[in-house]
C-alpha cells in the first residue's frame, strides 16, 4: 500500500518546526518519517533520541527526522529504501513553497499517496503577510490549498482578533478545517494517518501535551454497511470535525475498508490487512462535542446497527487553563 504523505506548509515563523517538535515528542503508533528543511531548529528532547547522524535523527519511538537538503526526491527515496520504511511521511515545506507544486511532486512519486496538506498560520501576522508585496500571493495560495489550517499562537492575541482571523480564513479557504493551537500542540492524529487503534489510547500520551480543544468520539462500526450511504454522511461533516478514520465492512463485498477523512478530503479504500483491522470503529476528532455526537447519530441513523452510544464516547484531551478558557468563549 502507498505510504501516506502529509505536507506541512505555512510561512516562515508560523510554527511548523515547533509543531514538528511536538509531534515527534510523542509515542506514536505509526513509524513516521519527518523530512525537514533544516535541523537547526528541530529541538527534540535528548532522552527521546536514540541515534544521530549527519542528516538523520532516530528516535526511540521508531520515528526518524531527516533533512531534505534541497533534494526532496533523494530524501523521499532514502525513506522508501529503508529496511523498515515509514508508515507515514510528514514533509515540512519551505516557507515559500508552492504547496500545489509540491503536492504534484509527491502525488506522482511511486509508492506515495497524498494524505493531507496542512498549513500552519501565525494568528498575529497572517493578515499582514497575506498582503505583503513579495510573499502575499504565495501565502494566500498556501492557505487556499490546505485541507487543514492550524491557527497557531492563539495565546498571543485576544478573542476578537482571533475570531477576525478565523472568519477571514474561513472565507479564504472554505473547504479547509480550522484548528486553533498554541505552541503547535495539536493531536498528532490530526496530521498523521494513524494505524487503526482507537485514538483514545493515544490520548493517555496527549494528556501530558496539553493538546488544546480537541475531542474525539469512537463510533463502533461492527456491522457491515452501504458505502455510498456512509460516504454521504462523510461528505457532509460539520466544519468542526477535522478528522475521521477507521475501518468498516462493505456490505456489498464483505471487504474491510479503510476510511480516511481530513477536513473536506476523504478516501475509502480496501484495507490490505483485514486481520489487523478489528475492532471496526470510526474515530472522529473535532473541536465541538455536539457536532461529534451529531456525527455518531447520523451513523446510527443509517440503520445498519452501527453507531451505538457508549457510556462516554467523547473524550477530550487535557487542556491548559488558557485553551480551556478559549473553548468556553465558544471558539469553533
Amino acid at each position, binding site marked *: 500500500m502507498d505510504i501516506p504523505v502529509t505536507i506541512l506548509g505555512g510561512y*516562515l515563523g508560523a510554527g511548523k518546526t515547533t509543531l514538528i517538535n511536538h509531534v515527534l515528542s510523542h509515542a506514536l503508533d505509526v513509524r513516521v518519517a519527518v523530512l525537514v528543511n533544516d535541523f*537547526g531548529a528541530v529541538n527534540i528532547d535528548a532522552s527521546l533520541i536514540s541515534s544521530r547522524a549527519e542528516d538523520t535523527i532516530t528516535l526511540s519511538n521508531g520515528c526518524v527526522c531527516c533533512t531534505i*537538503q534541497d533534494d526532496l*526526491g533523494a530524501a523521499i527515496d532514502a525513506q522508501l529504501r529503508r529496511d523498515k520504511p515509514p508508515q507515514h511521511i510528514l514533509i515540512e515545506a519551505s516557507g*515559500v513553497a*508552492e504547496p500545489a507544486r509540491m503536492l504534484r511532486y509527491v502525488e506522482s*512519486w*511511486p*509508492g506515495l499517496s497524498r494524505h493531507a496538506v496542512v498549513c500552519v498560520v501565525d494568528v498575529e501576522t497572517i493578515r499582514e503577510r497575506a498582503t505583503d508585496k513579495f510573499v502575499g500571493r504565495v501565502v494566500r495560495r498556501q492557505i487556499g490549498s490546505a485541507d487543514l489550517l492550524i491557527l497557531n499562537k492563539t495565546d498571543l492575541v485576544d478573542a476578537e482578533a482571533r475570531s477576525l482571523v478565523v472568519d477571514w480564513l474561513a472565507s479564504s479557504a472554505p473547504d479547509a478545517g480550522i484548528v486553533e493551537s498554541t505552541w503547535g500542540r495539536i493531536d498528532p492524529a490530526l496530521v498523521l494517518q494513524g494505524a487503526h487503534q482507537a485514538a483514545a489510547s493515544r490520548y493517555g500520551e496527549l494528556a501530558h501535551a496539553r493538546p488544546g480543544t480537541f475531542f474525539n468520539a469512537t463510533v463502533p462500526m461492527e456491522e457491515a454497511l452501504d458505502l455510498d450511504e456512509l460516504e454521504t454522511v462523510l461528505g457532509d461533516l460539520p466544519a468542526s470535525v477535522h478528522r475521521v478514520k477507521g475501518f468498516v465492512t462493505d456490505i456489498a463485498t464483505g471487504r474491510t475498508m479503510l476510511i480516511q477523512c481530513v477536513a473536506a478530503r476523504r478516501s475509502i479504500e480496501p484495507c490490505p490487512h483485514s486481520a489487523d483491522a478489528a475492532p471496526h470503529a470510526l474515530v472522529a476528532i473535532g473541536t465541538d462535542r455536539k457536532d461529534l455526537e451529531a456525527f455518531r447519530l447520523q451513523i446510527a441513523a443509517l440503520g445498519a446497527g452501527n453507531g451505538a452510544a457508549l457510556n462516554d464516547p467523547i473524550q477530550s484531551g487535557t487542556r491548559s487553563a488558557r485553551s480551556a478558557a478559549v473553548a468556553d468563549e465558544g471558539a469553533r
Partner: protein
Amino acid sequence: MSQITVYTARRIRTMNRSLPIATAVAVRDGQIIEVGSLETLQPWLDAHPHRIDTTFRNHVLMPGFIDPHLHPSLAAILLPCHFITATEWKLPDRVCAPVHGHNAYIDRLKQIEESLTDPSEPLITWGYHKIWHGKVDRQVLNNISSTRPVIVWQRSFHEVIANDAAIDWIGADRAMMERHHQIDLGEGRFYETGLAVAMGGMRKLILDPKRFRHGMELTKRAVHAGGHPTICDMGLPMLNLELEWSTLKAGMETDDTPFRTQFVARAVERGGGLGKEAENFERVRSMPKRNTHRLEFRKAVKLFTDGGYFAELMQVQPPGFIDGHEGEWLMPPEVFEALCRPYWHDGYRIHVHCTGDLGLELALDVLEKLQFERPRFNHRFTIEHFGLSTPEQVRRMADLGALASVNAYYVYELGEAYWKRSIGFERASQMSRLGTLARHNVTTALHTDFTMAPALPLNSAWVAVNRRAESGTVVCPEECITVEQAMRAITIDAAYVLGMEHEVGSIRAGKKADFTVLEADPFDVPPLELKDIPIWGTVFEGVPAPLE
C-alpha cells in the same frame, strides 16, 4: 627580472578612455609596462633588454574579455553530450549549426548515431525543443537505434525522451515507471519527478569522474575559445564542493590554462539557512584559504531571490504571467535579508541572482534597508541576470549604487517566445533593459551564465547592441546599447563588477598583460557582424595562447 616583450599590433583598443588607441604594448613578467607606440615606449626600451614581437601586426588587441558569471561545473556535465540545437552553438571541439524542423533534427540524430563506433555507447543529445524540432518520442528514437540507448535532453533541462534501449539502460523498475504519473513509457517521456528517475539512471554516465574531467577539459577550451583570460564561477558549489574543487584544481590550475577563475561562494550551501547565518558566514569567509594562482575566492558572496528565467519561474510583479502561473522564491525574503546582512556589514561584494522584476524589487528593498543601517559607498552590490525590470527600478539601482551583470542572450532566445507565450510584448521586449541602465550610468557587465548561453562575449555584445531575436526581429531598439558600451561591459566594466578593475579589464601600465587577439576591430565592423569577428586567441599574463 625577465626581458621586456613588446607586442605591436594593427591596433590596440585599450578601453582606457585616457589613451583609447595604441599600437604597441610592452610586457614583462606578466605585467603591462607601458602602452602606446614604439616611439613613446622608447625610454623603457632604452633602459632595459627587450624584444619586439610582431606576431600581432595584422591583429587587433583588446583587453582580455571577462565573463563575470558562468558555471564550469554545469558546463562540464553538459559539454560531453551531443548538441542538436535550434540556435548555433560554437563549441571548442565543434560548431553546432542551427537545426530547424523535424526531419532535419532526425537526420542529424541519425548522423550522430552512425558516427559512434562503440555500439553500446549511450547517445545523449541536448538542445531539443518541440517548437523547433517537432514531436520526438520513443518510437521515433527506436527508429534511430533499437540497440543503442538514445536519450534526448530538452533545452530547458526539464524533460528527457528515451528509446527502449535507453529505458532499459536507465535501469529503473519497469512496473514503477509504468505507474509513475510523470513518466509516459509509451512516448518514452520523463518529466518533473519522472525526470528524477531518468537522471538517477543517467547519473552513472554524466557524473562519471572520467567523463566529468573530460567535460571540464572541454569547458576549459570553450572558455579559451571565447577569448577570456578571466572568468568568474558565480556560485560555488553547484553540487558538491569537494568534488568540484578537486576537478577544477586538476583541470584549471595547470600551466596550459590560459585564464584565471574567480569564485564567488554561495551564501547558503544547501538547505534553508535561517538561524545558520553565522555558520554560513564562517564557511564563506574561510574559502579564500583554498586560493591558488589561477583559482581565487575574494571578498564576495552569491545570493538568490527568485527562480530560473528559462524555466519561467521568475517572480513577476502584477499583472504577472499570461497563463496565471506563479514564479518561485528561492528563499523567504526574511532569510535573504538575514543572509545579506553580515556580508554587508563586513564589506563584502554581494551578488544577487534576480530574474523577475519582483525578485529585483526584493533585492533593492533589502539594499535600501542595509544602506540605511550602515551606509556604504563603492559596495558593488550587483544584480545578476536582470531578466525583467522596470525603468523606475533602474533609477533606484542608480540611486542605491547597485551594479548590473546582465544576461543579454535572453533577448535572442526568449524575446519572442516570452512575448507570444509568457508575459506579452511590452514587458518581454524590454527584458535585459540595457539601454536604460546605460542612460542611468549604472555600471553594467554582460555575462552568459554558460551553459545558459554560449560563452562568447562578442556574441553577448552583438545581442546587446542589436537586440535581434532568434527570428531576426529587432526587440525594443530603445534598449540597445552602443558598441563602446557593450565592449566596456565585457572588459573594464565586467572587471569592475568583480572588483578587479585595478588588475584587468583595460590595457594600461601596471595591469596584468591579458589580451584578446581579434582578426578585426569591433569598433570598425558593422554592428551586425560583431559576433562573427574571428578570435586568434588570447595572451594570458604575457604568454600568447593561440586557439587550436
